[in-house]
């Protein structure tokens, strides 16, 4: 079992409090993605697992054993850095076997391991080249092979794809997912790209300013966000948020909006004018000016034109409600309260 548990973990740099009293359990064998904007603390958390950026206070457990002050090399982990951090003066082979040599792995075993993993990442012909002569994608594979060859219980990855071009990024994404399926070890992956998070993760941990906003599967985090921040971070374009007269907030996803020429009863409906139209192929994005608000709508109907007057409406089951602090109000929190909110939503319709 390589479950990782954070208990009341804090990280302060001089006066800056990056993380304060954080609790988190990362499940064994799953592909967990820590996602959030720059400075939210996700890389800090990752480095705490690795041991290269120790926590200021709190405890970290792996497999039930405390690893808070254990040296990085003694933890059963491997890490792939954002800038690969491969040793520039050594050949690819020497890079991969450096860790093995230090752990006094016998030569025959080393050779076998290098051969096996070089083949997996596709670097067999490059084993005796220096990293300076290789491309970014190849250097990334060196970092990957170097990590895999240690056969760790946990793989840590710090934005490994962000320095690659778009096409290579997509390719590597699927390769990493396949790798995870094959090895079935715990993966902890850090990224700021929510698309990457959604596509790769078994569990997403969304962070903001050192706090965990939500920890859930991609489906849950998309369909059932806990707060406004989560609702607006995940999903492109982000959820439309409207202030309600009683201080609460209401939101709906762009792809759940329907557009028509006539007003519709029994749901939230608003009149508006189309400001921009982006035809993306299978779907079209419209920006609609509804007086007080501008809404983004994503639909497969390309036939509306700019400047056209339309009515947008959202069915009740696709409405989300949040309180004044941005926390989600669910139907299960109180039927009457929820019915009242729906009524208020309907009351905000403007045709």
């Amino acid at each position, binding site marked *: 079992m390589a479950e990782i548990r954070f208990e009341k973990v804090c990280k302060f740099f001089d006066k800056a409090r990056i993380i304060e009293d954080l609790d988190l359990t990362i499940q064994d064998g799953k592909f967990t993605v820590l996602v959030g904007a720059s400075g939210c603390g996700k890389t800090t958390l990752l480095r705490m697992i690795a041991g290269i950026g120790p926590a200021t206070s709190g405890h970290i457990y792996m497999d039930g054993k405390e690893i808070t002050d254990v040296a990085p090399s003694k933890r059963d982990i491997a890490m792939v850095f954002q800038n690969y951090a491969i040793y520039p003066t050594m050949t690819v082979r020497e890079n991969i076997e450096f860790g093995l040599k*230090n752990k006094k792995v016998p030569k025959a075993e080393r050779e076998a391991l290098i051969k096996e993993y070089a083949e997996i990442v596709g670097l067999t012909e490059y084993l005796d080249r220096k990293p300076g002569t290789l491309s970014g994608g190849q250097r990334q594979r060196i970092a990957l092979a170097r990590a895999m060859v240690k056969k760790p219980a946990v793989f840590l990855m710090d934005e490994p794809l962000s320095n690659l071009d778009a096409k290579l990024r997509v390719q590597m994404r699927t390769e990493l997912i396949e790798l995870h399926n094959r090895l079935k070890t715990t993966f902890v992956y850090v990224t700021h790209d929510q698309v990457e998070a959604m596509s790769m993760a078994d569990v997403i941990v969304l962070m903001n300013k050192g706090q965990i906003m939500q920890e859930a599967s991609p489906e849950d985090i998309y369909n059932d966000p806990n707060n406004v921040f989560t609702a607006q971070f995940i999903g492109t374009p982000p959820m439309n948020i409207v202030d309600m007269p009683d201080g609460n907030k209401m939101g709906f996803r762009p792809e759940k909006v329907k557009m028509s020429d006539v007003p519709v009863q029994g749901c939230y409906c608003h009149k508006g004018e189309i400001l921009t139209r982006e035809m993306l192929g299978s779907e079209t994005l419209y920006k609609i000016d509804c007086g007080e608000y501008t809404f983004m709508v994503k639909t497969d109907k390309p036939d509306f034109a700019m400047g056209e007057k339309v009515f947008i409406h959202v069915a009740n089951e696709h409405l989300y409600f949040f309180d004044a602090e941005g926390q989600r109000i669910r139907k299960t929190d109180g039927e009457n309260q929820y019915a009242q909110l729906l009524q208020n939503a309907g009351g905000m319709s403007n045709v």
Partner: protein
Amino acid sequence: MSDLTLQRQAKRKLNGKFIRNQVFSWALVLPAILFLCLFTFYPMGNLVHLSLYRGNITNPYKTFRGIENYLDILVRRPQFMTTLKNTALYVCMYVPICLSLSVIFAVWLQKARKINNFAQTCFFAPHLVATISSAFMWSWIFSPESSGIANGIIKVFGFNTHNWLGSSSTAMVCVMIMNTWASIGHHALIFLSALKSIPGEVYEAAELDSSSAVKTFFKITLPLLSPQIFLMLITMTTNSFKIFESVRQMTGGGPGISTKTVCMFIYDNAFETNNTLGLAGASSIVLTIILMLITLLDFKGLEKKVHYQ
């Protein structure tokens, strides 16, 4: 106006302005070049000319001797070769020790901590002080009397006072100690700047690869520093070959001429003894050739080992 006239007018305009610009650009550069010709190239040529004659400062070209001066210093009289040997010994002692210590200090003081900053500042101070001052300071420390602090220290361990600067076994070593003390801070600083350009993640990756501090130093840090080390090697070798002030002040070349260096030989022959200006000239030329050879050899011999990124 006809086309031809217009063209001619345009050409004239171009020529006038063009020439003015050229002259101005050259005028900006001319002072520098003039100074160089007067005080670098001309003296060099003059020196070669001098080396072929026998004379002194007031009358440099008394007698023509051709290559006799060169034969004198290289073959016939032993003094020049002795000073050459002394200087070479010094260089072979000083360069490895100072270079290694500088690298070690730089790596030791890498991390950005208050104590490291403080230590760097203290180690760098001797470099700002005049060599002659340092020579006096260390002459006092190495004083042969019991009042010299060096003697004071060894007396604590039960040894007798030692004539540090006056005995041929320790004189050069003391000069070397003084020069190492004076320059370590500066060299370490240069290596420190180079170390800063190594991304911290490489060291973190090494830590995760169970690399000990020693292994990381030899397999990662040192290769990455090799360009600077290489350059420093050349600079230190050529500079230490020219050592003059510190030796002259601390030992005077003694005892006998066991610590006399090449530059001291040149100086004495130019100003102290009579009719030996030609010898000074010849030995200067030989020194220059040696320095050039050293630089060339270093480049050829070591360039393969340097890792460039």
